[in-house]
Structure formats: structure tokens, C-alpha cells
């Protein structure tokens, strides 16, 4: 960096800039000049970073910090916060095992704790299924589309299209398709599957799987596009050399392409896991996680209790739990990344 190197002295941002500019620099030389430069530099930094920092602190940091604070209170969000009751970690206890009060524990366990664990179980089931189903499927399609054949560009475009649609609009589309009198019932009937009682979404056994299918429809394209981007970075010579040495197409894919896009796969896995933990829009549009919460997620549970049942304290505790899970995953990912990168240093991305 060739920008002015500041002396180690701290100056408040945006101070002195005008006064320094207003007073003529005395010709005594370096020190005044330098100080003026520094003040000016801080003013510029303040000018450039200021708006973003103010917005970020007000609308990101402050609400997140507030969520942590509210989670320690019994508060409905309607009354003044000063009237809220401090209850320590009771909201967390209520979510995890029904709370510490023996009088209400059993009731709270059914009302809060069980739905919470059910929802969290769904989040993790979606993570597991993404890795077990979406990953191989997306890899297969990406490797296929990486070959040259007529219409490849169009195929890529179409397959990626659902990703840019809003989850809400896609969700409504699937609501129509999955309507008990809709096309899903008819097509399944043609395949010899009868609709479960109550409909595809309301069924305790089918609901979750149907929602996972819809989520896969929406997000498979992202995985495919990311993998294709990774594959385009694999040096052609490697594949060429291997195929000249007699490797079959499958061997080339399995031995060369898949290992070399490892970093891309890891990134996708990370995005997918974080997205699965925070999954909300789609689930909410599909009847708010189901009438009995058969495919609820922690985010939909949080909204149900925190906003629509005015239990801001409890909802905030769920939000904090959601954040902590994301944080642990992010840290784990970084650890894996760092180890992986030091192992594969020098390899192509």
C-alpha cells in the first residue's frame, strides 16, 4: 500500500479536518504537514465508512444484541420493555426441556419444548438429506452438463432458473400442485400411489418428504451451477491426459474432476447447511410449517411463537439458539477449510 502511512497515534475520525484545512500550514515543515494529513485521512475514512457503519450498527448489530437481551426476559413486545420481567435463562430452559418450574413443566414441554425439538430435527434432517440426496444428484447433473453436447447452454440456464425465483412464488406454485384435488394427486394416482388422508402436506408421513422435494427443486440448480463453475476451473490437460491414458469418462470424473472441485463442494455444503438451519420462507408459505408442525423449522417455530403469539422473549431465545448453531457450523467449517487447504496447498481450485 502506498497510501500515507499514519503515525501510530490515534485520532478520532472526522475530527480536526476542517480546522486543519482552515489554518494555513506553517512552513515549519513535516510535523504539521503530517498531522494535517492524518486528520484529513481520518476525516476521509469517516466519510467513506461512516454511512455503512451507522446503518450496520443500527439495523444489524443493535437488533442482534437486542435479541440476546430480550431472550432473558418474559416480554410480549407490546408492553414497554421496562415492564418486562427478567427471568434469566428460563426461556432457553423452556425451549430445551419445558422450563424449571415443576408446576408448568409438563404443559410447557408439550407446548414449547417438543415442537422446538421437532422443528430442530427437521432442520437437521434437511441437512442430512441435502448431503445424501442433493449432493450426488447435483454432482451427476453438473458432470453431465460439463460435457459438450448440443443445447448445453440452454440446459444450464433452465436448470438454474428456480434459484432466482422467490421462495414465496415457488411455494405458492407448489401449493397449487400439491392441492389434494390438484395434479400431484392425479399423477401419483396414475403411478398407483393413493393420496394420504388429509393431503400431501398434511400427512404426518408424507408432509416432510414433500417439502424436502420442493426445497430440492428450488435449490438443486444452485449446487449444479456452483459445481459447474468449479469444474470449469479444472485444467483440461489433466482430463485429456487421463483419457489418452485410457481412463474411461467415469474414471476421469471420479479420479480427477470430483476431487479437484472438493473446495467448491465444501463451500456448497456450508451454504446448504446454513440455509437449511435458517429455512423459513418456503416452509411458511406452505401452510406455516404444517398444521401440526409436521415440517416446521426452528425459524418458522420462532415466528409462530415470537411474533404471532407475541412471546418476544421466547422467540428471541430461539433466534439466539439458531445463531449459535450457525456459529458452531461456521467455525467447524473454517477449521475444516483451514486443514483442507493446508493439505491441498498448491492444488488447483
Amino acid at each position: 500500500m502506498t497510501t500515507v502511512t499514519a503515525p501510530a497515534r490515534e485520532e478520532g475520525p472526522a475530527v480536526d479536518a476542517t480546522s486543519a484545512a482552515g489554518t494555513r500550514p506553517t512552513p515549519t515543515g513535516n510535523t504539521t504537514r503530517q498531522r494535517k494529513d492524518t486528520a484529513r485521512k481520518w476525516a476521509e475514512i469517516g466519510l467513506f465508512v461512516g454511512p455503512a457503519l451507522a446503518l450496520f450498527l443500527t439495523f444489524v448489530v443493535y437488533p442482534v444484541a437486542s435479541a440476546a437481551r430480550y431472550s432473558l426476559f418474559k416480554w410480549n413486545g407490546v408492553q414497554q420493555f421496562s415492564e418486562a420481567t427478567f427471568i434469566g435463562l428460563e426461556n432457553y430452559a423452556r425451549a430445551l426441556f419445558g422450563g424449571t418450574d415443576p408446576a408448568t413443566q409438563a404443559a410447557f414441554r408439550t407446548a414449547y419444548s417438543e415442537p422446538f425439538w421437532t422443528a430442530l430435527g427437521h432442520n437437521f434432517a434437511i441437512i442430512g438429506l441435502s448431503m445424501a440426496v442433493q449432493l450426488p444428484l447435483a454432482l451427476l447433473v453438473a458432470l453431465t452438463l460439463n460435457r459438450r453436447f448440443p443445447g448445453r447452454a440452454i440446459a444450464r440456464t433452465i436448470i438454474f432458473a428456480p434459484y432466482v425465483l422467490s421462495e414465496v412464488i415457488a411455494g405458492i406454485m407448489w401449493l397449487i400442485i400439491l392441492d389434494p384435488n390438484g395434479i400431484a394427486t392425479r399423477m401419483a394416482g396414475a403411478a398407483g400411489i393413493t393420496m394420504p388422508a388429509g393431503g400431501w402436506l398434511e400427512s404426518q408421513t408424507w408432509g416432510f418428504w414433500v417439502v424436502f422435494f420442493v426445497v430440492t427443486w428450488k435449490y438443486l440448480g444452485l449446487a449444479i451451477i456452483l459445481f459447474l463453475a468449479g469444474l470449469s476451473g479444472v485444467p483440461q490437460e489433466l482430463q485429456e491426459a487421463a483419457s489418452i491414458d485410457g481412463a474411461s469418462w467415469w474414471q476421469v470424473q471420479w479420479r480427477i474432476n470430483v476431487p479437484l472441485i472438493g473446495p467448491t463442494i465444501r463451500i456448497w455444503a456450508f451454504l446448504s447447511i446454513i440455509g437449511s438451519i435458517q429455512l423459513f420462507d418456503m416452509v411458511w408459505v406452505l401452510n406455516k410449517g404444517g398444521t401440526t408442525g409436521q415440517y416446521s423449522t426452528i425459524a418458522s417455530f420462532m415466528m409462530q411463537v415470537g411474533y404471532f403469539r407475541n412471546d418476544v422473549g421466547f422467540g428471541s431465545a430461539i433466534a439466539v439458539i439458531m445463531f449459535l448453531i450457525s456459529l458452531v457450523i461456521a467455525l467447524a467449517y473454517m477449521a475444516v477449510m483451514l486443514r483442507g487447504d493446508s493439505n491441498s496447498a498448491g492444488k488447483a481450485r
Partner: protein
Amino acid sequence: MAAATDTLAPQARRTRPLFPRIDGGTWISVGIALMAIAFTLGPILYLILGGFKTQNQLASDPVGLPQPWVWSNYADILTAGIFWRQLLNSLLVAVGTTVGVVACGTMAAYPLARYRFRGANALFVLFTTGLMFPLTVAILPLYLLLRDMGLVGSMWGLIVPQIAFGLATTIIIMRPFLAAIPHELEEAAFVDGVSRVGFFWRILLPLARPGMVTVGVLAFIGSWNAYLLPLLLLTSGAENMTLPLGVTVFQGRYASATTSIMAYTSLAMIPALVFFLILERRIVDGLTGAVKG
């Protein structure tokens, strides 16, 4: 490239081109691609075609082409005004968010990329933690904050927080972008008496345009598709809603008129799909760039 290709005899390259032989494998590829396309496109086509049917047609023949084509579902929506109003709302919010994110984010990325000052790294880390705080985690307190500020029901209540939550990605993408611009340019500009602010406006911004387009496109899509914040903020009448929210309200209100909902939903898809077709390259670059950066 050179090292590997040099070892190949020229005729070997001619007789064995890389993969484009039309053999069994190619047909398998085409088959898999077709299946993926059917999986992707089938539901969307069903929806669009359904909008051209009457309720009875849909019930008797859900899969086939409309017989005859009914234009009234689409025509009614396009002439009613509420759809256009919601489209305009979505557009205003998305444009406001995009301009704000790109402006604030690029400005903030500039000193972080090219100034050396105490706390620069801490500041950058602070912004990147924004990635860890999705809107979902902050939504309850954010809603209360906006309520206290009197921003519930207003476009600004959407735009301003969306800018704030878009900053992390923007700064993460823009910082390396701005840092990569050669220092010789900066030195030359300073020698010519351009101030640092002038350098930012007159030289850096034009050079940073590709990066700004990328982050802008991401911000636009994010805002266009947003649901949670509009769900809480825009509760007062369909004419104030953005398009995704409007679709849910329409769906709830006319629950029995399935083909109308299909038409409304199809129309609501079009802007995003057109935007995507025009800017596909940018979107893909942005996503892969954001992911790698």
C-alpha cells in the same frame, strides 16, 4: 496448457478430440440433462398453462394444453392495476436497496481496501460478521425497532434494513476488487494533484463497475425475493405490498379460483426470469465470486 498439449502428437489430437464424440455417453448426458430440465420446468409450465384454463378445464384435463386458450385470467389481472402497483412497489424497494447497498458498500470498502489505518482489520471483521447474522435471527427486535421508528408500513422500513443486511456481502466482494486496482494509477493521480476523494470518484469507481454490477445484481435479487420483512412490515392493504407478499394475499383471498392464482403467480415470476435471462452471467459470477471471496 502449453506443457501438456505439446506432448500430444498433432494427429492424436485430431483423431481423438476431447469429449464431443457422439457416442453412448453423450446420449446418457443428453438423457440426464433432459430429465433435469423436465424436473425443473415441468411445474413452471403447468402453472403458466393453468393460467390459460378455466376452472373446469383444469379439473378435467390438468396436464394437457388449454382447450381453448382462455385469456381472461391474465387479462383481468393485467387490467386490474393492483398487480402493477405491487410490481412498482417491488421495483422501488429493490432499486432503493440496490443503490444503497452498492453506494454504502463500495464507499466503505474503499478505505478498507486502500488506506492503512489502525482498526482497519477489526472494522472489516465487524462487517463480515454480518454474514453470521441473517435477517431471520434479528427479525423480532428489528421489527420492534422499526415500529418504534415509525417505519412500519413504509418502503423505507424495507429498504434501510435491507441495505444494512446487504453490506457484509458487498464489502467482502468489493474490498479485494478495489485492492486489486494498480497502485501506479493512484500514484499518478496524486502526482497530478487529484485528492483521494477525487481519485475514488473519477478513477476508482469507473474501474470498479464490474464488481459493483455483481453486488448490485445480488442485492436486487435478494430484495426482489424478500418475504419475511415485508410480511411483518407491509400489513396495511394489498396496494402497499411487494409482489411476493401480494401473491400470498391473492392466493389467500381467491383460494377457490385456482386458475386465477396460477395466472397471478405466473405473471409474478416473469420479472425475475427476464432479469435472470438478461443477467445470467453476472448472477452466476456473483454467486461463485461471493462464495469464493
